[in-house]
């Protein structure tokens, strides 16, 4: 029973681990390209979660062959197929923003961008912030 439960939930658990690794990369890393890679990992894990739910034991790919067969659920496949291509389009948008941020600030590290913003708003804060580091 325990072993059955473990195998029955293993996919979901690893997918959750992957999701959290992606989320942690997004939250904890300051580099904007790294954040986007983290976001992609998170996104792919969500895809795997959906497809895992659609899998039927002993099933096969949902393409009719004329023989009676058990098919895995085609509906998550449709959702995720379009989501992947939408994902790359939004990734491209994110990367374009990163390029623009680099042009404007000369850096793609979030901390430095924020420091530059602070400086612009409150004058030179180098004496307080940078020494505190």
């Amino acid at each position, binding site marked *: 029973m325990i072993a059955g439960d473990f195998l029955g939930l293993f996919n979901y658990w690893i997918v959750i*681990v992957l999701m959290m690794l992606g989320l942690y*990369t997004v939250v904890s890393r300051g580099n904007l390209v790294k954040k986007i890679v983290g976001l*992609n990992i998170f996104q*792919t894990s969500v895809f795997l979660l959906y497809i895992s739910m659609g899998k039927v034991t002993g099933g096969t790919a949902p393409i009719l062959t004329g023989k009676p067969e058990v098919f895995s659920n085609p509906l998550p496949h449709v959702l995720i197929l379009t989501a992947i291509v939408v994902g790359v389009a939004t990734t491209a948008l994110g990367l374009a923003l990163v390029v623009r941020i680099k042009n404007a600030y000369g850096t793609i590290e979030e901390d430095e961008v924020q420091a530059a913003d602070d400086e612009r708003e409150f004058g030179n804060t180098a004496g307080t912030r940078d020494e505190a580091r």
Partner: protein
Amino acid sequence: MTIANVIDIALLVFLGLTAFAILKLRALFAVVMLSSVFSLVSACLLVHLDAVDVAFTEAAVGAGISTVLMLATLALTARREKASTRTQALPLIVVFLTGLALVYGTLDMPRFGDPAAPIHHHVAPKYIHDTETEIGIPNIVTAVLASYRGFDTLGEVTVIFTAGIGVLLLLGAFIREPDGLKIQTMHHHLVLRVVTKVLIGPILLFALYVQAHGDYGPGGGFQAGVIFAAAFIIYALVFGLENARLALPGHAVRVLVACGVLLYGGVGIVSILFGENYLNYSVLGSTPVHGQHWGILLVEFGVGLTVSAVMVSTFYAFAGQNPPISDEDW
């Protein structure tokens, strides 16, 4: 524990290790390459989970196009991540608690592969049962994508269209199309040049096959669009952006971006004019099934057109920026 379980677990563990390496590495080139590996391994896993269409897309998009775009970004920005100065404790706690909550949530979920799970007893049986008689094509995923849920797919194509416009606006591709810009090419690599020339034809042909054969096997407009764009991107990478622009001018691609969405939406309008609901293709042919064939063929072509045009113009926009890193530095 069967062989299938072993493959499943091995691939998942490999994905976990890759994700962990991505988190730890600071060399961004390696990070991008590992994210490509991550996509390819997840594509393998998707095949294993019977999602062949999805795996196809993931392999073409994740391992192909997004890697190229990320490398283009690296060339324009930075190649190393600076050491983080912020505290790591709070994100770790947040992520750990979120993960714990999600794991707690899975305890009530139907077990993996359970045929009695509610997801398999909603509309999915109808699609599996009726596709043969109502749509008349073997690939159920294409039938659901282009016909049963055609409205959703129109929405997705519009999102891709919008994201493409966003990239072009952000990178200023509408304002200036730099002429005679000295862009680094790999023109002096003889092997790359020869291999590319040999590859481009088969890649284009394969894209057309995937586009046309999407009704019968894995494939369709989304995958074909990405593969078609890959042929132009590899040409631009090796022979330079100017030459690629001669073959396929930037303004022509931008027109094609809109044409695909218009074709998709237009098919819907035509079905209204014939007295049916929006995107109901049954009226487009002599019999309802014949009409479905026409409708799916046309909207898939629209999808392929928009996807490939968005990918190519996005790449043009990235490559048109002047990269500060010279070829030798890579």
